[in-house]
């Protein structure tokens, strides 16, 4: 009796896995074909709507499409929880998660699990106006699985009262650190606490130096190159000689912003959100004395920022994919993109929006951000992303703290990413 039930459960579990595998390969079996052209009410799933931009948009859509109303399902503010919530609902084949907002780094994983509807055929969207890096982040195995919705790139904040011309290369940045010493403040910081932000910063260092973390296939590590070593070595050296202050090993975005606003940092690598806060925060001591620039590069243009942002994807379990597609196009429209930028300070994915004069007046960082995103590189587009980012974080963290050599850290990172792609 017990044994029978156990094996039944086991059987169901296996059947579930097999089914998930099959349906994903064909990208839609007989049962889901009808859903491709079906219109009807759908649900849009996204993390916390911080700046109240999604609700007004959905109201606008609903007014125009009374028969294809969109319901908003708001998730938590924490990225990990949004990820887990999506996984749970995909595994349960929830038909009510029609359009989902996925972080750029989850797109490959969800696509490879067969949960995202490829945007091809009747569901194809126009990508010519979009920034290439954002499209790359939504592409897996040559197919587009999601529509870039919002973007984000790192920019360099600097103290304009101390630095007249912002550095354009890493070496210039390091020589400018003399200014910090004279002023009695710390020189440069990014995000080096052990969390996703560390992967972002390490990827930027490696990509800027001309290296890569994984090859185009998303699973072969490419860290055994002189370029990769050069990139990580820069961070390690700067931390060791104090140009990156020792406290920076605890920094996430907010701690770095706090230090910069308190006037304790000459340079800060952070996202655009810092701009308006540093201008308006009551405790900010740098309101009128900071400027922004693209990340320092390697002598051939700006540094390679890691790409942030989100993509909108259609669940394979959606019953009304045609409506879902229309809604995604609505999210992509330059009108919506402008609304995202003005109301929510969310970076647009359409290049032309960045040069809109009224927008630039409101968000003066847009031209710099555009440069950053144009030279941005997506973090590894890998279906094994969780394991890849762990491999990067663990080893880079140890190297920056000086516990292991750069060579050892990169060898281990290389081996750990290989192991991840081999299934553990």
């Amino acid at each position, binding site marked *: 009796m017990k044994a029978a039930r156990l094996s039944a459960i086991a059987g169901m579990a296996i059947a579930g896995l097999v089914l998930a595998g099959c349906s994903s390969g064909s990208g839609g079996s007989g049962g889901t074909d009808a859903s491709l052209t079906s219109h009807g009410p759908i649900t849009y799933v996204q993390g*916390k709507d911080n*700046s*109240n931009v999604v609700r007004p948009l959905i109201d606008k859509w609903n007014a125009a499409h009374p028969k294809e109303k969109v319901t908003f399902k708001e998730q938590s503010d924490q990225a990990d929880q949004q990820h887990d919530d999506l996984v*749970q609902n995909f595994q*349960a084949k929830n038909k009510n998660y029609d359009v989902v907002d996925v972080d750029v780094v989850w797109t490959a994983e969800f696509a490879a699990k067969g949960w995202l509807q490829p945007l091809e055929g009747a569901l194809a969207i126009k990508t010519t106006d979009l920034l290439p890096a954002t499209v790359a982040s939504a592409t897996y195995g040559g197919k587009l699985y999601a529509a870039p919705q919002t973007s984000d790139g790192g920019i360099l904040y600097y103290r304009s009262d101390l630095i007249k011309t912002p550095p354009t290369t890493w070496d210039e940045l390091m020589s400018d650190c003399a200014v910090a010493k004279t002023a009695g403040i710390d020189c440069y910081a990014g995000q080096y606490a052990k969390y996703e932000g560390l992967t972002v910063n390490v990827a930027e260092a490696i990509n800027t130096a001309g290296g890569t973390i994984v090859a185009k296939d998303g699973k072969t590590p490419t860290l055994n190159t002189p370029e990769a070593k050069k990139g990580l070595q820069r961070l390690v050296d700067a931390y060791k000689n104090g140009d990156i202050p020792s406290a920076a090993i605890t920094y996430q*975005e907010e701690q770095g912003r706090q230090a910069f606003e308190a006037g304790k940092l000459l340079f800060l690598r952070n996202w655009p959100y810092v701009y*308006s806060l540093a201008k308006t*925060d009551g*405790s900010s001591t740098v309101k009128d004395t900071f400027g922004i620039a693209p990340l320092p590069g390697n002598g051939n243009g700006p540094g390679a920022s890691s790409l942030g942002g989100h993509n909108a994807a259609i669940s394979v379990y959606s019953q009304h994919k045609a409506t879902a597609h229309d809604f995604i196009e609505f999210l992509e429209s330059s009108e919506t993109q402008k609304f995202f930028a003005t109301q929510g300070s969310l970076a647009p994915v359409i290049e032309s929006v960045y040069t809109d004069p009224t927008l630039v007046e409101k968000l003066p960082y847009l031209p710099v951000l555009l440069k950053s995103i144009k030279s941005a590189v997506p973090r590894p587009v890998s279906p094994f992303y969780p394991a890849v980012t762990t491999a990067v974080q663990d080893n880079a963290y140890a190297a920056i703290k000086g516990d292991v050599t750069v060579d050892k850290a990169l060898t281990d990172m290389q081996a750990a990413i290989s192991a991840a792609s081999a299934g553990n």
Partner: protein
Amino acid sequence: MSSVTAGSSTAAATLGLSRTAVRAKVRVRRKGTAQRVRTAISAIVIVIWCLLPFYWMIITAFRDVGYTYDTAFWPTHVTLDNFTTAFSTALGNHLGQALLNSLFIGVCVTAIALLIGTFAAYALARLDFRFKGVVLGLILGASMFPGVALITPLFQLFTNIGWFGTYQALILPSISFVLPLTVYTLTSFFREMPWDLEEAARIDGCTQGQAFRKVILPLAAPAVFTTAILAFISSWNEYLISSQLSSDATQPVTVAIASFAGSQPHQEPYTAVMAAGTIVTVPLVILVLIFQRRIVAGLTAGGVKG
């Protein structure tokens, strides 16, 4: 504690002679001045240790968000904005509803867990039956599995039976999380009960059930209330399961607070989180003050034995 023993024990021994029938009064009078001072100092240290971080939370809750990292030890840049933010449904923060949800879930969990926990504990403490060790082991075993690994199967189970996002989907797991502790605590307390009183009641013509309700339960009141507080707070704090199984309408405060967001991506709204933390803590302190009377009442009732 051992350093001053000589003096105080002599004093206590001398004063101990003045013992009378009204016990509570006696205890006060019996205490020497030295001990009273020591108790007072200890109490002050305890209160400071427990409340200092809470104080910091309140200070931060009233601080303007632009001065989040101000380290002044007294209130500065005082504002009520954080509380407005916490309750602002326009920003998508449903703290008011969430408070009610948590209260409702907590009361249900506590009541049901105590009810069925008392049955089980009574059987374990008083009845002689086979497989008792196995039962105890199973109940204990239930609190050994990493909670994080329970989520996925439960999510699938509850989705399949259409319970996703309902109150029962939040209450049921919570009950089972507090049950092992409830059963063990109550069993341990029940074993210390003067069961001869129950025998006496039975001889007086009560059934086993009546004897339990009329004699034992009142005696066990302090233990039961302690267990109730444990169960309630445990359910009040439950986050992991609720974050995955609740819907907008049923989400408890822990989930509501976790989904608090700043006005900008990446910005962490510490001040609003601290405001919400303050709001969440206050009702419990009030509850404790109410329960506290019941515990004292239970204590005096317990004194009858002996």
